[in-house]
């Protein structure tokens, strides 16, 4: 069984080598795809340099301009769809916040419970200080958890987590259509609303090792409004009974 780890990277020259280094402990069967989202620093050169030294198969796609996290992650899903041989696709941050030791657990939980989406949650277990984000962010996260629960009936604790494992029903659909900005809560809601099986696994997260967050203070209000509206808009869409097949490119 082959699984693909998608790492969206924007200006992550500092953290990327360490992040990819930590993934090398994973067993055979895992493959890695870095999607360089039009970085302005040396992320492109560094990512290319990592290919030769990676024990796991490593692919690198360079988006020529910065398109946003959603487009970067979707590029990974499209790569998986074009290949056709992957079972699970795991989204993993380039900034070193995610712990590679939990990847196998996410996949196992998907397999064991038949999940289409398993989200790594910071809030199911306490892994110590610094692992649960800032106070203001926690308020935002709780609000989205409440909104998603109220509109879909699905209970989640960490809807903004970008550490997640997707089964074929989810990632094949997302290869065709995926939210562009701040996609995690929206995509989670889409899965819940369309009766895909969603679960969570407690994971440890670290402080970011480098780069800058895609959600800065100035954007926080816009982020809350945009994602809330997107969820409400998605609620009034029809349930997708049959999932569209992604277009192969290779």
């Amino acid at each position, binding site marked *: 069984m082959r699984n693909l780890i998608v790492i969206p990277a924007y200006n992550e020259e500092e953290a990327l080598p360490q992040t990819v280094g930590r993934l090398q402990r994973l067993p055979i069967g895992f493959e890695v795809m870095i*999607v360089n989202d039009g970085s302005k620093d040396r992320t492109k050169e560094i990512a290319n340099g990592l290919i030769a030294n990676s024990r796991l198969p490593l692919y*690198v*796609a*360079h988006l*020529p*301009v910065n398109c946003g996290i959603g*487009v970067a992650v979707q*590029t990974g899903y499209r790569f998986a769809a074009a290949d056709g041989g992957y079972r699970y696709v795991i989204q993993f941050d380039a900034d070193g916040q995610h712990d590679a030791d939990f990847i196998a657990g996410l996949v196992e939980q998907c397999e064991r419970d038949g999940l289409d989406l398993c989200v790594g949650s910071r809030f199911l277990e306490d892994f110590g200080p610094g692992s649960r984000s800032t106070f203001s962010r926690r308020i935002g996260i709780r609000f989205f958890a409440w909104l998603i629960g109220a509109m879909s009936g699905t209970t989640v604790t960490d809807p903004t987590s970008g550490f997640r494992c997707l089964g074929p029903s989810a990632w094949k659909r997302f290869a065709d259509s995926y939210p562009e900005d701040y996609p995690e809560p929206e995509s989670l809601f889409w899965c819940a609303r369309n009766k895909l099986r969603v679960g969570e696994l407690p994971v440890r997260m670290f402080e970011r090792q480098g780069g800058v967050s895609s959600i800065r203070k100035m954007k926080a209000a816009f982020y809350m409004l945009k994602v809330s509206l997107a969820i409400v808009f998605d609620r009034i869409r029809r349930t997708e009974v049959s999932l569209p097949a992604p277009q192969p*490119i*290779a």
Partner: protein
Amino acid sequence: MINAEFLMLLGGSGAFLMTLYWVRVRELRERYAITWLAVATLLFLTGLFPDALKYVARQAHLSDPALVLFLALAAIYTNSFFVSVTLTKHYRWNVRLTQQMALLEERLRRLEDRKASGEP
């Protein structure tokens, strides 16, 4: 003497000619030109038959300037809305092309690596 009717005639003729010019030099697609030709025609006809505008204003219980303002705002709103729709569509196409290009570049890199290492 310059009056509102004359200005509308002039504006309508100008808009008509400008639209035709931009279509002729292929800077404006025919499908978008249709809307602008309709606006130009409306301006032109209003300049030619100002009583028609006054009749509509009376029927709508509006003063002439208020009706003109309302029609202008409606035209601006409609056009801006469809520009937004078109921009969204073009954004999606751009994203798809960008992704496709990045993925094909990666595929090419792998093929070149394979060729360089002598693999079949």
